[in-house]
């Protein structure tokens, strides 16, 4: 065959991405990936490349994009430092099950192992934090490997995939033919469900007097929000969420009893150790959810509905495991269970909520002290957006407060770094979220510490003109660490106090509209101005320096020993 019909490996990468329906890439060019960027230049009518200011920002933007859109986030970076800068975002996507494909350039194959300029073993480095990874050294392998990459990233329990392509493979000519990947023989993305197990689960549910549901991100990833809602409405079972399950069920739904875990709500934590049946749906019993496993729900039977067999009995042993895609298994279960209401059991949650309201919530959202609380800022955002916004959070006190107090009407609206707890996540993730759901309001709520870890992405927000609303809750501390120092290290505030720059000036330097609020009387107006703006907008709120987040389950304590103060 003549070379006339052949295309370069680099063009094959671009054509493969187009075949997968990709139209947006976050990335950063460099030597070893230049042939692919050269092809991007030619295909810019079909593929929008967003130049972030750091490769880590590209990964978090792709995560934000994926989490709101349900599509695969795509990232490109060069070899060496470009590739290693992706690692945090990849690890975050792995532990939070986010579909992402990262394409890295690599030195030419004849240089592999020679410590060439910008050579690093990114396959070796990324192995423990990827769902799959693969190095390509021949152009002819590009379509098949990329098809496999997208299939693996998005199927079953989603996750990040990294494909490393040597520079010579990008230049090499090949005959392009694209076939979507439909299966990999050694990989079973969705395990078969057992109707027998579902029947057994239905019996336990029908016999239960005090059933309790904890649901996670599986409901969102499985797009099973409606099936889940039908199930709980038929059975009348009080349902609490993990941080990544938040927004799968509207906040104000009568069966939504709040958050479980370390800074979750009082009722769901205490009553975890009172229920007679715990139904875990699409969640993985993280230690921040369970507290001490030796005293976690020991009195209850446990049903675990889950797509990943490795999660069954990993942390909490279950009586009935229902494997499979919950979008299929929940409706089967719903058809087998009796209609019920559990009125007095549900009242127990209301009773505990009243206690928490009096001791914690009321003081947080209606404070009488001078300093602003984080919760009252969230309350104003709720009022201004009516709960229709996508809210992106970073990691720390502001994250816990936001997840506790933010109101959500729609699914895929809470974007946060849960499992890895990556500070610096929110600003780039908010950009990705806005680009994944441009019609929706996107509010990033960030602490003053994490904000400065990826603050350079203000440049990307400005350059793309994405109307992200950025709220920095500034307490001049690494607040969560300071809270632990106060509670468990006798107030020895080792390296947690921050001397901060003028954030408004910095935002203005990036040509963003920017405002700062330090007094309660100005808060409502400022939040409303920010939400009304159709441009990117920065709002700094000076909050009380040494506020703590409560309730709290100290590390190693039981969920029922949650402290209110």
């Amino acid at each position, binding site marked *: 065959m003549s070379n006339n019909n052949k295309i370069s490996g680099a063009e094959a990468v671009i054509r493969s991405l187009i075949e997968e329906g990709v139209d947006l890439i976050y990335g950063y060019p460099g030597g070893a990936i230049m042939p692919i960027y050269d092809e991007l230049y030619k295909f810019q009518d079909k593929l929008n490349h967003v130049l972030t200011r750091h490769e880590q920002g590209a990964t978090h933007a792709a995560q934000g994009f994926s989490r709101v859109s349900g599509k695969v986030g795509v990232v490109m970076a060069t070899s060496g430092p470009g590739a290693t800068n992706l690692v945090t975002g990849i690890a975050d996507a792995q532990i939070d099950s986010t579909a992402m494909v990262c394409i890295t350039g690599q030195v030419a194959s004849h240089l592999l192992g020679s410590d060439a300029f910008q050579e690093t073993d990114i396959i070796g480095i990324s192995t423990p934090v990827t769902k799959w990874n693969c190095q390509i050294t021949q152009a002819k392998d590009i379509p098949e490997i990329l098809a496999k990459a997208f299939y693996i990233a998005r199927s079953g329990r989603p996750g990040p995939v990294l494909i490393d392509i040597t520079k010579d493979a990008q230049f090499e000519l090949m005959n392009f033919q694209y076939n979507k990947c439909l299966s990999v023989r050694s990989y079973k993305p969705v395990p078969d469900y057992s109707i027998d197990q579902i029947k057994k689960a239905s019996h336990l549910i029908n016999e239960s007097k005090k059933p309790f549901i904890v649901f996670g991100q599986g409901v969102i990833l499985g797009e099973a929000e409606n099936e889940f809602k039908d199930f709980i409405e038929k059975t009348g079972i009080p349902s609490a969420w993990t941080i990544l399950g938040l927004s799968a069920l509207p906040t104000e739904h009568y069966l939504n009893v709040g958050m479980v875990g370390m800074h979750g709500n009082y009722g769901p934590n205490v009553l975890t150790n009172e229920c007679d049946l715990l139904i875990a749906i699409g969640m993985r019993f993280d230690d921040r959810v369970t507290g001490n496993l030796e005293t976690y729900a020991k009195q209850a039977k446990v049903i675990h509905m889950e797509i990943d067999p490795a999660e*069954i009995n990993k942390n909490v042993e279950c009586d009935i495991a229902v494997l499979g895609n919950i979008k299929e298994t929940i409706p089967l279960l719903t058809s087998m269970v009796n209609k019920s209401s559990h009125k007095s059991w549900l009242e127990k949650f209301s009773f505990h909520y009243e206690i928490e309201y009096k001791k914690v919530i009321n003081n947080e959202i209606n404070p009488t002290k001078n300093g602003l609380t984080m919760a009252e800022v969230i309350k104003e955002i709720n009022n201004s957006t009516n709960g229709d916004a996508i809210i992106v959070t970073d990691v720390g006190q502001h994250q816990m407060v936001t997840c506790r107090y933010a109101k959500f009407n729609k699914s895929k609206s809470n974007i946060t770094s849960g499992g890895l707890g990556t500070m610096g996540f929110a600003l780039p993730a908010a950009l990705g979220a806005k680009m994944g759901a441009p019609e929706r309001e996107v509010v990033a709520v960030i602490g003053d510490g994490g904000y400065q870890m990826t603050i350079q992405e203000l440049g990307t927000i400005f350059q793309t003109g994405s109307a992200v609303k950025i709220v920095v809750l500034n307490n001049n501390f690494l607040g969560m660490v300071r809270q632990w120092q106060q509670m468990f290290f006798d107030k020895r505030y080792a390296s947690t106090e921050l001397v901060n720059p003028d954030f408004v000036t910095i935002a203005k330097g990036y040509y963003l509209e920017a405002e700062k609020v330090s007094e309660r009387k100005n808060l409502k107006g400022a939040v409303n101005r920010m939400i009304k703006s159709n441009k990117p907008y920065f709002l700094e709120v000076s909050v009380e320096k040494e506020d703590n987040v409560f309730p709290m389950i100290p590390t190693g304590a039981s969920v029922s020993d949650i402290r209110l103060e």
Partner: protein
Amino acid sequence: MKDLKNTYTVSIYTENNIGLLNRISAIFLKRHINIESLTTSPSEIDNIFRFVIVVKSTEFSIQRIIKQIEKQIEVIASFYHTDDQTIFLETALYKVKSKSLFDEKHIQKIIKNSQANIVTVSPNYFVIEKTGWRDDTEKLYKELEPYGLLQFVRSGRISVSKEPMNISNLLGLNTDK
């Protein structure tokens, strides 16, 4: 019971893939578990490879590790067995100075009694091979050591399970025909 450590033989059937060894060893590394021995080879099925890994661990831990291994894309299936559930062997090679074979009559007796094989003899050295359980190869090591071992090496464990592993069923293959 949960804390009781035991020797487990982990058998893993996989596709052939660069990097898979790294992926599998990382699962042990992440949990701070030392790999006692590791062998890779073709399996009874065309183009399917087999890892045999020996680790000391608790059953609680090994059950969870098996699931993490099976979760890897190119792993077809993974099993764990205790020593009494498998037939297993190791091979050791001992390189000894030829001079001692002629000077020390006792060496010939040791080789004969241990049922080891002499693989090669040259004017300078000879090589003995012994296949068996760890105790057998260690016993021979101790017996030969006083005469001066030039080199010693022992392979990783190879093992087959007593019960079938039904791997071809998982792949929809029929290898029993």
